[in-house]
């Protein structure tokens, strides 16, 4: 009975209001003034490839731990660990892909013509 209630709650939460990346992820990030660009750069600095970053992010979001976090331990100590994301794998992968695309540094690079 508890399990069914829990599942219903998840479904309700998922269906709730904004069922997109902006509404699901960025809304809270922006409200909490989380520096998305900097976080992505930390991922880049450590994992280099987009595919690797996506896999690491999905894994972390599904089961966040201090060891898996890209942020340093003092940061976690101060702000606490992120709560487990309750999203389907497909949705999670989609949102992570959008996150990576949005904050991709490669598209910021330009060659200045003389």
């Amino acid at each position, binding site marked *: 009975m508890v399990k069914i209630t829990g599942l219903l709650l998840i479904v309700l939460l998922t269906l709730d209001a904004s069922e997109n990346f902006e509404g699901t992820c960025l809304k809270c990030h922006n409200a909490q003034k989380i520096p998305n*660009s900097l976080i992505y*750069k930390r991922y*880049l*600095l450590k*994992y*280099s*490839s*987009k595919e690797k970053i996506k896999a690491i992010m999905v894994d972390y979001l599904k089961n966040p731990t201090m060891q898996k976090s890209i942020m340093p331990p003092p940061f976690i100590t101060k702000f606490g660990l992120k709560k487990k994301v309750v999203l389907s794998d497909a949705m999670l992968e989609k949102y992570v892909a959008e996150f990576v695309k949005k904050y991709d*540094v490669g598209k910021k*690079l330009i060659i200045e013509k003389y």
Partner: protein
Amino acid sequence: MLKSEKKSLFRFLIIYMITTMALFTLATTIFYIFEKHWLLDVQKDALKLNAESLVVKIRQLHLDDSDKLIYPIEDSYKSALFDIDKNYIFGDFRPKNIDFKIPFEIKDGVLYHIKPVSPYYLGTAYLVLKKPINQAPFERLLWTISLFLLFAFFVFSILGFFLGKLFTAPMRQSFEKMNRFIQDTTHELNTPISTILTNIELLETLYECDGKQERKRIEIASKTLSRLYDDLTYINLNHKHHRDIKPINISTLLDERILYFDSMIEAKKITLTKQIDKDITITIDENDALRLIDNLLSNAIKYNRQKGLLKVILDAKFLSIEDSGIGMDKKELEVIFRRYQRSNQSEGGFGIGMDIVNQIISFYKFKIDIESKKKKGTKVSIRW
């Protein structure tokens, strides 16, 4: 300088130059290979430094929060960024078929440098730089080495020449001694031979005495000695004597010389056939003509068999002397003009006759044709 000395010096120089230059070229090639590698290393180091400075710039870009990040480009090289999965990130060129395992690669005269980057600024795990190889230092090196080799060739040629002269000096001295000895001997021979021949003629003219055959033998022996004297004098003076080249009546001269050899022809009971056209004139030094005829006639008699045949033909274009003697095979014909070469060791002589003939025909650019069959005879034809 003597002909043989020149030949020896030339051969020595050839061997000396080939060995010296081969060793020198080998050493220079090794030097060139090392130097080329060093020059390439210099360019590799320069590209390495470029990569280092580019990493610093990429690090700065990584820390930059601007909306536009200006990629650092340089005129001297081109660069590209790759992530850990070897995916292209950005750059001012897009390399293809790069082997990320080796730090340097050369393709079509372009030097590629692959620098692993860590931490991965902007996600960059590999930095690929390319720069066309500067050929100027290599060309300069090649030019310097070529000049050096040329200079070495020049120096070694001079050195080889002097060394050769030094080595052939004892040989030259021996030749000079031998020539002087022959000169002295021939000079001393002349007077007694002339005396014997003159007195034999006087004996024949003035006195009717016994021992005609013995007198004939003395005459033949003296004439042989006289001809030998003439040949030796000719060889010794060959390079020094002045030739008086003028038209001479070769028919008369040939008749005179046949008469001169008459006693020898008679002694061997040779049947002589003459087809000599009258008043044939050729332009030649008389002494050269004399030596040419004498040597050909002498050989035809000397190497003829007893009761053999001797055929002498002269017309406006050629002189031919044919005998029915021992003849020669192909091998003997090949070396016939060599000095001191004798067809038959049992016959007398120094083997200088055909050498003299060869010298004369070469000087006047005559053509000589020798047909010979072993045990059948020889026919020598000279065309002018």
